[in-house]
């Protein structure tokens, strides 16, 4: 068959694809920041050693990690309107879902990062008279964060890939933008191909950056 990409000019890109691209980025950034914040709280709860904090956090993380993301997206899209009593747009629903879902994954990364700091560091903090909060903030977390930064960023690349799954509830993201353009010009084959290339270029460049960063951090350590 003959591929014809000529219809994909700037006007088409800006009227169909750009809107979706912006939403995908928006979704990724909000879910990353929200997910890391919520994930840190969950990780702290799991490491606190107090059963009434450990149990709910472990339940939250393990449940979300064993359900397919598409099902989580569908669940939230069904439940949020029932809880708040009015319909909610697919885009907003997706933002809430991804923040809550990614928190489970980020929290596991944070937990591993904090646990990778030798216990002696905590004792050293106490020995020089610091409180628990000071030890965490000044000694443990800075080291933990450096250890886990590459993994956190890799997870963010995965998060960006996963945003394409909002397809299930019809939110308008990057993939949807390409799909709509393809339908309008009756060129689905070309648009899916271009979509794959665009996703690849973005994710591959980000992965490369993460790898560079990893090397840099490894040398400092």
């Amino acid at each position: 068959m003959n591929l014809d990409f000529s219809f994909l000019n700037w006007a088409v890109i800006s009227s169909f694809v750009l809107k979706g691209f912006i939403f995908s980025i928006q979704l990724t950034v909000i879910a990353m920041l929200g997910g890391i914040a919520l994930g840190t709280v969950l990780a702290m709860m799991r490491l606190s050693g107090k059963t009434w904090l450990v149990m709910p956090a472990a339940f939250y993380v393990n449940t979300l990690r064993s359900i397919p993301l598409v099902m989580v997206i569908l669940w939230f899209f069904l439940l949020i309107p029932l809880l708040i009593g009015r319909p909610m747009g697919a885009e907003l629903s997706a933002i809430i879902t991804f923040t809550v879902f990614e928190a489970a994954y980020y929290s596991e990364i944070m937990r591993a990062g904090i646990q990778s700091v030798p216990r002696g560091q905590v004792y050293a903090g106490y020995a020089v008279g610091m409180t628990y909060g000071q030890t965490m903030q000044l000694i443990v977390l800075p080291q933990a964060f450096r250890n886990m930064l590459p993994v956190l960023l890799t997870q963010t690349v995965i998060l960006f890939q996963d945003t394409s799954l909002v397809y299930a509830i019809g939110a308008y993201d990057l993939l949807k933008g390409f799909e709509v353009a393809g339908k309008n010009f009756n060129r689905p084959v070309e648009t899916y191909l271009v979509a794959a290339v665009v996703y690849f270029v973005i994710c591959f460049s980000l992965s490369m950056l993460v790898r560079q960063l990893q090397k840099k951090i490894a040398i400092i350590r």
Partner: protein
Amino acid sequence: MKWDWQVFLQDTGGGQTYLDWMLSAWGWTLMVAVLALIVALIAGSLMGIFRTTPSKPLVWIGNAWTELFRNIPLLVQIFVWYHVIPSMFRPLQAVPSFILVVFALGFFTSARISEQVKAGIQSLPRGQRYAGLAVGLTLPQTYRYVLLPMAFRIVIPPLTSESMNIIKNSSVAFAVSITELTMFAMQAQEETSRGIEIYLAVTGLYFVSAFFINRVMMVVERKVQVPGMIGGGK
């Protein structure tokens, strides 16, 4: 709200109940996942091995394969297999879409398995490879009799989580109208408006499937454990 579990006994209009439909959807989920896992294990092991050989072209192929299938979202890969590839290679138009999804999911997962197999082989002491070559084994023989038997045992735990991921990821097949569990959930929810009951049942089946795979892999792990290794038991 009130529960209405009887929804599963309702007729779908096609002479079967929603329960029948859900069980057949479960079958599709398991079939897609298991076949994709086989594809992923074969392709992923091969590419992982390539990446540890001394041959530069093979290393390049393995790296390129891994980067290609890892950096495109699964849903986009499924669309490419479903829409793009059959239109470029005509004979593939006769292939059922279910097979295309198996390859999409299998190759996607193979990128991650290739990483783990590579890491498994590299975690072995370098001396093992040299020892194999020193006693006169060829490179393929060294892999077959010295490196791989240990490497595969080492990567069983990450392979277990990949196998559980593949069950979860098979849900993306809904996008090309494979009647697996997620597709069933979406359609049955629309038809019956009993979304919560339907979603609960489907989520439960995903749990059960992942748990089952987890148990199977644990049995495998115990069967093949090497005495004297960490986690190897007696």
